[in-house]
């Protein structure tokens, strides 16, 4: 049963601390995404990678957020320093190479619930 795995599932941290969220995409998927869910904005795309190279990180606050993919089985999202406004659910998703025939379906992990106090 292939699925996207995220850790930690829940994290409570103090303002100013560094937070790292990790994601293992589905084996064979070459595109990996980070989304953030908030009440006001719904699902926001923060960044995505194809074949481990960043394709678009325009949705990510650059001063405190960074996303990397050190290898094909691991993607990380780091916040340093964290702020209370970063409290949200962060989703990782992965997808196979998109084609016009197969469409654009991507598969989400269960999310990392972050609370910054």
């Amino acid at each position, binding site marked *: 049963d292939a699925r*996207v795995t995220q850790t930690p599932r829940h994290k409570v941290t103090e303002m100013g601390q560094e937070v790292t969220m990790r994601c293992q995409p589905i084996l064979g998927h070459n*595109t990996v*995404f980070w*989304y953030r869910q908030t009440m*006001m*904005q*719904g*699902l*926001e*795309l923060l960044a*995505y990678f194809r074949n481990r190279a960043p394709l*678009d990180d325009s949705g990510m606050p650059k001063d405190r957020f960074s996303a990397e993919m050190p290898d094909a089985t691991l993607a990380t999202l780091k916040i340093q320093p964290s702020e209370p406004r970063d409290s949200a659910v962060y*989703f990782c*998703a992965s*997808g196979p190479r*998109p*084609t*016009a025939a197969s*469409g*654009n*379906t*991507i*598969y*989400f*992990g*269960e*999310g990392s619930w972050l609370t910054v106090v």
Partner: protein
Amino acid sequence: DQQVKQNSPSLSVQEGRISILNCDYTNSMFDYFLWYKKYPAEGPTFLISISSIKDKNEDGRFTVFLNKSAKHLSLHIVPSQPGDSAVYFCAASFLGTYKYIFGTGTRLKVLA
């Protein structure tokens, strides 16, 4: 500036009746649309999609309608079941890319 809008944050429907969830978009260049369903404490799961060359796509109890001139799509669930109670997100993108723009979601509650 929301390019994809779901103007109804919540909807309640009786079991067995039709649920209609609506979504509007502003960019006429979008050519691929999707609906995802999300249960509490889980990630969104893909439900159904439609490309802009079609105006309807059906999968079991779920049908998506696309009205390009109105820049509007809707998801119909018939008949609605209590297990359909979830948050539904619509998303728009360009076929062959993964840059989805999601709406803010509509919480559907199906009453038994």
